[in-house]
């Protein structure tokens, strides 16, 4: 099965799941409303977006230097820094840390980078118990599904579906489909895990070079418990998450939480600067940071595509995407779904693997309009489309450049070009199309499933304009 066929299959499955589509529609409608309520002043919003963009650009343009400073400062603070080029290296590093400390159980806070590396499976295969402590992630761990959204990972499930899962995995708990009671039930189960886990793994939202601080945004307190209760804390993140100063954090944090969930601030905001100090009563004895590249340096080297790395993973682009709302996150088949997934995943995994994602976009611009760091998502997605069919791929470009070029499609566009770039041919074409207007070419079967092939007018505008005496020049 080629990547298009596999993609169509996932789309078909999603579109035929009415429950799923209702879940997404209502969830996305709600989250859009909540975001909107956070930005009553349109101008203020634009100022915030420009500021956030500038901070992210500054961080990216000086990334190498900032990463060095970050490492030095973290090391000074007693946090051990590890570098990973590939997902496998990152997983291996984390496993080694755990092994050295004979850690056999892990509680995890939500981390999309760990999804990127498929860390859970890696550790489980090596005999380590991994428990997701974010409620949504915990639900997915029971269901054995990947996240369908980067912020609200189990959003594709409604509370009845969640209740069923709890019933199945925790028959000892009283059956309920009340959201608060379900949350209470999860709390009961997870609290015990926090108490005995050897290590906690978390993501990072911002890594501050100036102070060597790892910032973690969350709502459930599970992040705080995962990073403070066990004796080892391992944070994993992408290298692009570094920012220079502590003062860079508040503007990013504000626009992140408002854009993501429509909250002025999340319930918890953790700033982790060092392991437990002598005389302190709590906190992990060891703190590690794994910095993952996984294609980011290559993305950074492209003048245009570097904007991809401004992303602060708010999820707003998917919340507002008219395609995402119909098919949901799993249809994309990649770690990151929605517009940012369409943009990032082909760059990370290769156009030859997932370039077909770029077709799932109408270029409507809804994502670019809400992105808090002003990533021109439609423009860059369109750029990837050009890369995908590029006839002369260069070594340096996006991996898999040119992989989706098909001879038949290329011929069609050449034909189109010769008609539309040659006035005489175009006029001949229009003449035929208008005179033979009742003859419908059996083209575009997909279009015809939902609409008829449109009928040309009896006379073209060009002809009518001449007849009515409009001048030519």
């Amino acid at each position, binding site marked *: 099965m080629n990547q298009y066929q596999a993609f169509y299959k996932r789309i078909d499955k999603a579109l035929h799941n009415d429950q799923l589509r209702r879940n997404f529609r209502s969830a996305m409608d709600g989250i859009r409303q909540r975001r909107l309520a956070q930005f009553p002043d349109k101008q203020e919003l634009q100022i915030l977006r420009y500021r956030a963009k500038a901070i992210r650009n500054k961080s990216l343009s000086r990334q190498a230097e900032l990463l060095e400073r970050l490492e030095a400062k973290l090391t000074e603070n007693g946090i051990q820094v590890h570098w990973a080029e590939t997902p496998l290296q990152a997983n291996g590093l984390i496993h080694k840390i755990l092994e050295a400390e004979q850690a056999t159980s892990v509680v995890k806070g939500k981390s999309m980078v760990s999804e990127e590396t498929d860390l859970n499976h890696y550790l489980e295969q090596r005999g380590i118990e991994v428990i997701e402590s974010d409620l949504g992630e915990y639900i997915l761990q029971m269901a054995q599904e990947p996240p369908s959204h980067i912020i609200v990972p189990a959003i594709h499930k409604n509370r009845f579906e969640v209740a069923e899962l709890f019933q199945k995995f925790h028959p000892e708990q009283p059956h309920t489909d009340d959201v608060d009671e379900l949350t209470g039930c999860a709390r009961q189960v997870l609290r015990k895990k926090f108490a005995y886990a050897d290590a906690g793994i978390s993501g990072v939202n911002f890594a501050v070079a100036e102070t060597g601080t790892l910032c973690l945004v969350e709502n459930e307190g599970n992040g705080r418990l995962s990073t403070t209760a066990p004796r080892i804390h391992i944070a994993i993140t992408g290298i692009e998450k570094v920012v220079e100063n502590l003062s860079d954090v508040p503007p990013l944090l504000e626009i992140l939480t408002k854009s993501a969930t429509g909250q002025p601030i999340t319930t918890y905001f953790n700033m982790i600067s060092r392991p437990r100090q002598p005389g302190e009563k709590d906190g992990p004895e060891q703190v590690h940071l794994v910095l993952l590249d996984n294609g980011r340096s290559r993305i950074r080297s492209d003048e245009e595509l570097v904007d991809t790395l401004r992303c602060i993973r708010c999820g707003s682009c998917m919340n507002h995407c008219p395609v995402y709302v119909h098919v949901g996150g799993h249809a994309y088949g990649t770690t990151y779904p929605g517009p940012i997934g369409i943009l990032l995943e082909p760059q990370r995994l290769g156009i030859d693997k997932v370039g077909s994602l770029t*077709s799932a976009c109408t270029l409507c611009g809804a994502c670019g309009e809400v992105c808090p760091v002003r990533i021109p998502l439609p423009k860059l997605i369109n750029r990837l489309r050009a890369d995908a069919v590029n006839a002369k791929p260069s070594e340096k470009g996006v991996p898999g450049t040119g992989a989706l070029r098909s001879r038949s499609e290329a011929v069609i566009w050449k034909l189109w070009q010769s008609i539309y770039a040659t006035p005489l041919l175009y006029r001949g074409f229009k003449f035929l199309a208008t005179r033979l207007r009742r003859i419908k070419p059996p083209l575009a079967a997909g279009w015809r499933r939902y609409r008829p092939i449109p009928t040309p007018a009896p006379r073209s*505008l060009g002809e009518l304009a001449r007849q009515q005496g409009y001048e030519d020049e």
Partner: protein
Amino acid sequence: MNQPERVYFFGTCLIDLLYPKAGLAGMALIEREGVKVIYPANQGCCGQPAFNSGYRQEALAVARAQLNCFPKEYPIVVPSGSCAGMVKHHWPELFAGEPDESQAIAAAQRTYELTEFLVDVLALQLNDLGQPTKIAIHTSCSARREMGVADRIDSLIAQLSNVEVMDHSHKTECCGFGGTFSVKQPDISGAMVEAKCNALLASGADTVISQDCGCLMNIGGALEHQQHALPTQHVAEFLLQRTSGESE
């Protein structure tokens, strides 16, 4: 900008072949205000279909053929948000580094979407002569986000005293056309247009009005396919009909 003496009308390939009445109506609206409309005979397509499919060389060749149709300094009026957006925002990108880049940028700068031109340049005043009717307005995503002129159609329609505008849910959401998207991802496109049609049908409108024929072809086609009797019409035709006392 003051009222110009002459403008170029860039009819777009879709209107040229499928919806010439919309084009003629747009031209008539402009001429009625005393501005001479020039319709270059050699025009065709802005290049957008190929550009949005990744075929930039082909798009460039076609765009270049248009550039030659609009040599003078007159404003270029385009009765479509997405084609106007292509010229205004993507021609500079497409022509970057080409010998005719500066011409393309100049053309982009004097390009207007039709309703934008009618409101911002002509300050068009309308006197409604039609029977009471209810319409729903679908604003194309390009007019809304790329061109930022979504409110111009609203303000034109608001001048029509006998026209009631019906609200519909998810008004700002894409109708699912997206050019070649509708062919490459037909089922997602089908789901999107179905949702759009349902919202429009529920609005209670007698007609759906838009400034983009791409959207109208998509929405109108889907309504026809589902055998609903809700007609669609380009805003230029609608405005002309309402204000010239003609009826369909």
